[in-house]
């Protein structure tokens, strides 16, 4: 198939394209997920910035 000699290589060729398609489809379906994260995210972000030991006084936030 596709001009190849054996199925091992045909599978690899098709597999390459299918894997990339899986990534694209996954990315589109989960574009805005995990959604429930958002409020926790904001709270965590604030908490993080308040407690981040790496941040020094007077830094831009």
């Amino acid at each position, binding site marked *: 198939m596709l001009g*190849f000699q054996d199925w*091992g290589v045909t599978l690899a060729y098709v597999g390459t394209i299918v894997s990339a398609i899986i990534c694209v489809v*996954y990315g589109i379906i989960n574009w805005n997920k*995990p959604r429930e994260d958002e409020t926790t995210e904001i709270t965590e972000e604030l908490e993080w910035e308040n407690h981040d030991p790496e941040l020094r006084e007077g830094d831009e936030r």
Partner: protein
Amino acid sequence: MKMLFLGVIVVLYLSVIALLGYKGFKKTKNASDYLLAGRKIHPMIMAISYGATFISTSAIIGFGGAAAVFGMGVLWLTVLNIFVGIFIAFVFFGLRTRKMGHNLDAHTFPELLGRRFDSQFLQSAGGLLIFLAMPLYAAAIIIGGAHFMATTLTIPYEVALIVFVGIVAVYVIMGGMRGVMYTDAFQGTIMFVSMIILLVSIYASTGGIVAAHTKLTELAPEAVKIWGGAGHQGWTAMPVFWSPLWQQLVTTIVLGVGIGVLAQPQLVVRFMTVKSGHELNRAVLAGGVFIMMMTGVAFVVGALANVYFFENVGSIALIAADKKTDTIIPLFIKSAMPWWFTSLFLITLLAAAMSTLSSQFHTMGSAFGRDFIENGLKIKVKDSMTISKLAMIVAILLATMLAFGLPLFYSEGTAIIATGTAIFFGLCASAFLPMFIGALYFKRMSATAALASFWFGLGVSLFSLVFIHIKESKPIGLCNLLFGVDTLIPAMQYLDPLILALPISALVAIVVTLFTEKPSDTVVDRAFKSIG
């Protein structure tokens, strides 16, 4: 005209890099910025940066050249690169890594493992291993980049080396993770465009997709004539099962590099640079396509170069390239593509090498500075950034010295590139992967189990490199010196060290976990907060 064009695009390229490096420098205010780009990187930049770091000159030139020998079976590595290196890495490792890194306030991969298992020793040992082993991988990238620059611009290797390392060093040290990721994204874009042109050209010049494959299939007797004894059956067929060629292709190239990518510290740390989980999901989309266009195209072009050379020069690619695997892709570009593309391709390779090297420098610096000196030796300085910068300078000097020295010891500089890359991938996977999976998914896994798996993975890998895997054990020579043979287990001489070390390391992790006490709830609860 050609030199002028090349000169202009090199200057243009370097100016954009300088600008982006400066942008990173301006936006970097503290250690979180310096180590994790302030955890606010755009998903697209993250995905391309991850891809560009993942793919180096070694993948395009080294493994592309390998495809000219092994044939299209190498595409199994692309399948793994996309499915394991992107999909599984982002979805099953990335989301949790980001969350846990945030929960534990971790800024580096060893710091994440150290805090998760509540073991400062683990963090320092991990940092030290990365600092000691990564210069080999970095040197491999430097050698590849500098060699190509020296040949194309006709300047001495030493000069090319200093210029190449110098440019990357400046923007990494100054711009930190932001500088690294901005330049990565730019470099990744150049790589992407260039590979699209290459893909279209190769199929156009060999008569279309199926026609090109058929022509390659018809060349099979040529391959069998040379490598038939080692198991070769043609460039569009897999080698004979368990033959030396099959073992090399499947264990070292496909599995070694394909799985090894999951525990690469310079890649793992990128999961911690994005703001939220869904940005990682978005990054999967771009990442998958990017990798397909990188290794997928390089391997197809490498294999089909045989058709091109056979039709035009009357010999297969390897013979046309004087039996030097690493020369096949550059030679193909030079002979088959228009002159302006050769210049563009030089920039592409520089971009591929620089984007990988910049992350290596950054990772070595943070591993030695933050994980080993600051955490292990307890030497505190006013801010974390300074110590990472100093450590980075040490790491850069070390890698540069290796890149100077290694080609002097081995006449064939080409072998060093692929070997250096494979050794580092294997070591990281064997030492870190089982405990990384444990850290993310198994609350029960103890610190003792993590450490045991680390030592066993590392130990078995090193043992195999020195005493079993003939590709390394022979040039190292210790096995021959002690026992008078090049390998202790001839039956396993072609099996990649990872095939032995990774299962042992995983088994040790499981057994030791079963026989040790479960870790304290405080640590586990903190690490798994809102992860479940």
